């Protein structure tokens, strides 16, 4: 997995790619959580994520909860088909912010 971050005004967009499993969750969190803690609205772009397991889902849940704690939005954008399937299997599509 690799990532890049683009910031514009108070919105930071984190582009994740590749496969997100237990081996890379710390890296994914390191990319996202500090931006939320800085009070930014964070968009997580998942169009290039080909695989995500429960560890990846845990990153999305933690990010969402951290956003609620910091009173900012964490929005999932352009979710790939395979990741959306996993989000729906976890029945999280009504809980996470998806645009």
């Amino acid at each position: 997995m690799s990532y890049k971050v683009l910031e514009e005004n108070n919105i930071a967009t984190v582009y994740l790619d590749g496969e997100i499993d237990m081996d890379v969750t710390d890296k994914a969190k390191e990319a996202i959580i500090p931006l939320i803690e800085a009070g930014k609205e964070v968009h997580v772009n998942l169009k290039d994520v080909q695989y995500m397991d429960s560890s990846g889902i845990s990153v999305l849940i933690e990010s969402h909860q951290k956003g609620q704690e910091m009173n900012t939005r964490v929005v999932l954008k352009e979710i790939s088909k395979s990741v959306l399937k996993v989000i729906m299997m976890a029945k999280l599509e009504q809980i996470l912010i998806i645009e």
Partner: protein
Amino acid sequence: MINFSEHKDFEVNSGNLKNVRTFARGLFEKSEYLQNYQEELVLALAEAAQNIVKHAYNGKASNDTMRIKISYTEGLLKIELFDKGKPVVPENIKPRNLDDIKAGGLGTFFIGQIMDEVIFKTSKVDWVNHLILKKQF
């Protein structure tokens, strides 16, 4: 219908989960039926392999190996995982309550959603834990 049975050993560490998935994808591509469910099946297997790293070995890399065996015979897919880690207590394995928004137990929940049958065995010879996942096509 194509039948096959193959196994491969992997050192127990989170970096090898990707190799487990690659091994499984290569086999699932052999059958048209399995190919249609490839990503779900890979997810179920990978979650089970992740549980070995996370729970049987407390998330620590080990020189021990885990064995993944995948068999497909007459429409029955059987995925077996063997490890020498901490013995699994089946009563302690609980899928996540979906009303409780946290990640713990989600992998077990996914396995249950994808596969028809999940069997835990304690192996007395060579291995400690033996997990069997089955799905009929």
